[in-house]
């Protein structure tokens, strides 16, 4: 179903995958503001949507044992300068299944836009769930992105997410993800965000490694310039034998920007192990001078180093 082809095309025109919608084996869901404008599913995957105030409720169910080889495309966006987009998601991933999703969040003209995501995700035993979210924002910074998720990861299951916001201004982003890992389960969350001007970045990610042998990695790579601020509160707790994890935060700070990292690691079992590492500072001088010694200007060199760090 494509309700407004032109609008869908325009939204996807901001992404690197404008062609996918023509493929019958690729599932997709496109929401513009508070309206579903395109949707297509594939066998074993049920997507249904309901209109709610300022947004859409989305229920995704992946049946047991279903493996969806082609990445599923989600596109949430809006073109108007002002408005609220609220997405309430319920995701139920059946046992032994596999799905990989690519979500584009497109707000190219935002002056005062709020994108609120509230997700509840359950990943069944042995299932694998991958979620990559890419944001394209206006250069004016008028976006508030408030994603919240609660994720239960079953035995032997995997949850891997990547959040990327490196184009346009951040505006305000306030991520709050909570994950609970069962026995042998894996959680990996990576955020790559670049802030300028008076952008504000807040990340609160937690991973509770509750099952035996559960594994977790929380990684944040942040660059802040101008007067931007970043606060990263990552928390990992391990309460079962052989649970192990790592919390990693890299932040490059330029100009008058401020970055804070507050990792919390908590171990409740003598056979569990968690490490953390935080590196916050300006661009490394040797890296900078290496590029400058090949003829690059300081600004270009800083950009290239940050681009690398965020990649």
């Amino acid at each position: 179903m494509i309700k407004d082809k032109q609008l869908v095309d325009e939204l996807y025109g901001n992404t690197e995958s404008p062609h996918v919608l023509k493929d019958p084996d690729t599932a997709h869901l496109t929401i513009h503001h508070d309206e579903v404008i395109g949707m297509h599913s594939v066998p074993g995957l049920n997507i249904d949507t309901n209109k709610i105030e300022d947004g859409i409720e989305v229920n995704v169910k992946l049946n047991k044992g279903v493996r969806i080889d082609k990445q599923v495309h989600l596109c949430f966006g809006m073109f108007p300068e002002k408005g609220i987009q609220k997405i309430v998601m319920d995701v139920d991933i059946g046992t032994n299944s596999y799905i990989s999703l690519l979500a584009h969040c497109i707000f190219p003209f935002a002056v005062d836009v709020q994108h609120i995501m509230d997700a509840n995700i359950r990943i069944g035993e042995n299932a694998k769930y991958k979620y990559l979210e890419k944001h394209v924002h206006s250069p004016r910074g008028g976006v508030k992105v408030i994603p919240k998720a609660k994720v239960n990861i079953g035995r032997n299951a995997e949850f891997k997410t990547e959040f990327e916001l490196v184009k346009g201004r951040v505006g305000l982003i306030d991520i709050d993800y909570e994950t609970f890992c069962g026995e042998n389960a894996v959680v990996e969350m990576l955020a790559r965000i670049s802030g300028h001007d008076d952008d504000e970045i807040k990340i609160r990610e937690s991973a509770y490694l509750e099952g035996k042998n559960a594994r977790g990695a929380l990684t944040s790579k942040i660059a802040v310039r101008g007067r931007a601020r970043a606060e990263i509160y990552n928390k990992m707790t391990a309460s079962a034998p052989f649970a192990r994890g790592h919390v990693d935060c890299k932040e490059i700070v330029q100009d008058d920007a401020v970055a804070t990292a507050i990792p919390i690691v908590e171990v409740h079992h003598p056979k569990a192990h968690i490490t953390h590492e935080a590196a916050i500072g300006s661009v490394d001088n040797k890296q900078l001078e290496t590029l400058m010694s090949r003829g690059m200007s300081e600004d270009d060199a800083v950009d290239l180093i940050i681009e690398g760090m965020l990649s």
Partner: protein
Amino acid sequence: MAIIEIENLTLALNGKNIIAKLNVEFWEGHVHAVVGPNGAGKSTLASTIAGLSGYTDFEGEIRYNGESLKGMNIDERARKGITLAWQEPARFEGLSIKSFIMASSRENDESLVLRVLDDVGLDAEDYMHRSVDRTLSGGERKKIELASILAMRPRVALLDEPDSGIDVESLERIFEAVDILKRDGTTVILITHSLAVLNRAEHAFLMCDGNIIDKGTIDKISKYFEDRCIPCDHKNMPNKAEIKETV
């Protein structure tokens, strides 16, 4: 003709003169070696010519093609053709070898990346898309540094200890890269305390305690390695053990 002329160069680091009233000329298009024991000030001299931060506040004069380098930043000097390869090159997380090499070149030509990687003996297919990060061995990292310098086509290349961390077979590739630079007309300044590297130069300078204390043919300067350091009143008199170790 001298492409770099240094007159009465004095440079202090943390209040201590590391280079004191040094005079030297590097002729254009030649491969020079600056040799000397650890702590002689070789890297400091290279950093001062390249214009690294912390090394720009010197007394005396450094002229490049007759023009003073005083007050000129590292990138301005690089755009005029002076570059430096560090003894321990920097690592860049997430930056591909391809982007790193392209950043050095003025041409936007991908085939150049293939060529310069080949020149230093690395298989471009295997390396292009890898990152210039901690997953590279020290030797691989040095070769990539040299590849980026080949891509830049500088007029003066200062190579600080180009053989450190390089195995014997790879060393030959490093020397071939030096030959390519020379063929392109680049003036190469090899900073070294190794006899193998010294032997590849056409002209050598002996540095000790912040000064150039002798210069001449490779034969003449390599005598230093045979334990005949020119007598002088320097403080860091190289001891025999150290000289033996470096040979």
